[in-house]
């Protein structure tokens, strides 16, 4: 009994020790809208760089920035808007010289596939028929900020904001619409394309400023060399082709 | 017949079984269930009171049929109107003496108040000399006071018979003697049939009770029992 207990303890301790792993890790924090595309891109990068394992961490760009600012050991940061990356740069968190834009997107209004009506213009959303509208929280979610600026430009923010159901990231907004818990939602064109059976695009909105995705290696990246290569990889033809397949535009 | 009781219960617990098969009938106003511990005396008493379910039973007390499995009749304990004195008295700890005694006088969802407005309750408080402690809680009472409170509580509801589970066991000899004679007087005065559990033959003699001798769940004849009458089944 004592011997087996000793052995079990030894095994437990051994597994907990940070033994030098064969694979080097690369941690990438990326905007939620990049989930599907990056999940497909990661193996491609790993194939080109054997011995490296890519760890993906998705969320709203604002939330990801907070994690990095509070010391999360991230190598690469890809956000959905310039503003978050600017903020990161201002706090000295990224290697500014290696910052790149690697994709663009469009803002769309979606409704549940089962919805009877579709708004024909943004102003329609102010009608009583649209009681709940999923919008990303502007304080931390880029798609929410894009939405707010578009609606402010159309003078509709005051009318629509009371109906806002705040989403913590764009995928949550998408989920709300897909479940028909809201009457409409603002997401990226690439997100809407993922669930054609559950949501349909009602409007494609011209952005007041272009939706450009920047990426940069972090100043305190544990794996600095590989971080730099990942950033370059995202702008490579292979990666760009894959991003295009998901509906992302050129940077 | 004042007492006409037949009950059967098979208990199984952790591999062992205990069978209660008790039958007795008697005209004696005072009956004692006598026997060693584990014989099934409390189980019998509780079954008669209706707080324990037997497998089959026929219970007729004072001419009133309380339980008859054959005819599908089974009165709830509430309906049986039997006074029951528990071994530990079971006085409600959250109520005063007066409230305890008055408990059965109210059938609603609320307990009786602390004021003494019920004549019958006050009568019993006086009869049992509990005036001084009427507003005390059970934990503040002596053993004798508790016993008298429990008795008053049972009697104030004018039961048709009184069932007592070792009413004197927790008391010292002097108190026991005194309360025994009080109980005998009470019973004679009220004409209330009495069935009590005891393993003390002195109780039997003092109360001049007929004996139902229980052993291992059954009524037994014991010719070695001096001066006791055996109730015929």
């Amino acid at each position, binding site marked *: 009994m004592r011997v087996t207990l000793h052995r079990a303890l030894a095994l437990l301790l051994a597994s907990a020790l940070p033994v030098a792993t064969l694979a080097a890790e690369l941690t990438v924090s990326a905007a939620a809208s990049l989930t599907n595309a990056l999940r497909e891109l990661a193996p491609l990068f790993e194939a080109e760089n054997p011995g490296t394992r890519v760890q993906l961490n998705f969320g709203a760009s*604002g939330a990801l920035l907070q994690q990095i600012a509070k010391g999360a050991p991230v190598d690469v940061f890809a956000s959905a808007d310039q503003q978050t990356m600017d903020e990161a740069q201002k706090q000295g968190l990224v290697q500014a010289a290696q910052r790149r834009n690697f994709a663009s997107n469009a803002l769309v209004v979606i409704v549940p596939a089962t919805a009877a009506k579709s708004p024909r213009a943004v102003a329609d959303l102010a009608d009583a028929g649209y009681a709940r509208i999923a919008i990303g*929280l502007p304080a931390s979610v880029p798609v929410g900020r894009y939405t707010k600026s578009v609606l402010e430009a159309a003078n509709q923010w005051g009318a629509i904001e009371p109906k806002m159901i*705040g989403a913590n990231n764009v995928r949550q907004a998408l989920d*709300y619409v897909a479940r028909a818990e809201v009457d409409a939602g603002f997401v990226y064109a690439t997100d809407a394309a993922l669930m054609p059976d559950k949501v349909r695009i009602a409007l494609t909105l011209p952005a007041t400023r272009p939706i450009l995705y920047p990426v940069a290696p972090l100043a305190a990246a544990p794996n600095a060399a590989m971080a730099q290569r990942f950033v370059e990889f995202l702008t490579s033809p292979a990666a760009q082709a894959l991003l295009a397949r998901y509906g992302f535009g050129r940077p | 017949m004042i007492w006409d009781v037949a009950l059967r219960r098979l208990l199984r617990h952790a591999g062992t079984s205990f069978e209660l098969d008790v039958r007795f009938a008697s005209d004696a106003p005072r009956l004692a269930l006598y026997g060693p511990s584990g014989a099934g005396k409390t189980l019998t008493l*509780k079954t008669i009171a209706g*707080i324990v379910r037997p497998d089959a039973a026929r219970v007729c007390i004072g001419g009133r049929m309380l339980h008859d499995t054959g005819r599908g009749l089974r009165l709830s304990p*509430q309906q049986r109107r039997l006074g029951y004195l528990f071994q530990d008295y079971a006085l*409600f700890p959250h109520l005063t003496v007066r409230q305890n005694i008055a408990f059965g006088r109210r059938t609603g969802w*609320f307990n009786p108040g602390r004021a003494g407005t019920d004549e019958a309750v006050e009568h019993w408080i006086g009869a049992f000399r509990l005036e001084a402690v009427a507003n005390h*809680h059970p934990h503040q009472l002596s053993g004798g006071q508790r016993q008298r409170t429990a008795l008053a509580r049972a009697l104030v509801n004018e039961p048709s018979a009184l069932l007592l589970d070792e009413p004197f066991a927790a008391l010292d000899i002097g108190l026991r003697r005194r309360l025994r004679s009080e109980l005998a007087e009470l019973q004679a005065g009220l004409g209330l049939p009495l069935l009590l559990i005891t393993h003390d033959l002195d109780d039997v003699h003092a109360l001049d009770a007929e004996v139902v001798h229980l052993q291992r769940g059954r009524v037994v004849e014991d010719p070695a029992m001096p001066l006791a009458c055996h109730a015929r089944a």
Partner: protein
Amino acid sequence: MDGAWIALLLTLKVAGCATAINLLLGVGIGYAMAHGRFPGRDLLDAALTLPMVMPPTVLGYYLLVLIGSHGPIGGWLLAHFGIRLIFTWQAAVIAAAVVSFPLVFKAARAAFEQVDPQFEDAARTLGIGETAVFFRVSLPLAWRGILAGLLLAFARALGEFGATLMVAGSIAGKTQTLSIAVYEAVQAGQDDIANFLVAVTSIACIAVLLSAGRLVPGRVPART
């Protein structure tokens, strides 16, 4: 800090309603389980305790499926009464009630089981009906244990986050409880707001736990 006070009041309202619901359900079911002897009782007890051990997000997902617009309960409510539960404070109450139910139920069951059955039997022999026995004997003798459970449940409901976020979302003034407000303040980098909210929540929880501690059953009055 205006928003913080609104969040606090909303949180107290949600937690209060959830605890009131659990008072009725938890005490009733706890009593039934303490006294019932039926096959499958232990299994039922485990099932009723499940919300306490399940991750709140898993629970939140099940609730979402049940009371969402397409769910069996939510769909029925929508079709017959035009009621949409998701994103309402009522949904927040449901989430908080479900996760804290086991705390009341288990405490109530234990408290009722500790009541000597002799007292209830004595009441019966005195002619008191079953419901009256519950209100006059069982409940008064078990209330301390039940109250301790209620206070723990209230504290749990105060801090409920995962399940609430899933079914009630985060609408300032309507469903944004303190925990959710903290989460979003952190995400937005508003540390000063987050600190304030965390302090308020902590004080509330500590106050509740201290009260619960004073009511631990077993405090027998001194014997004279």
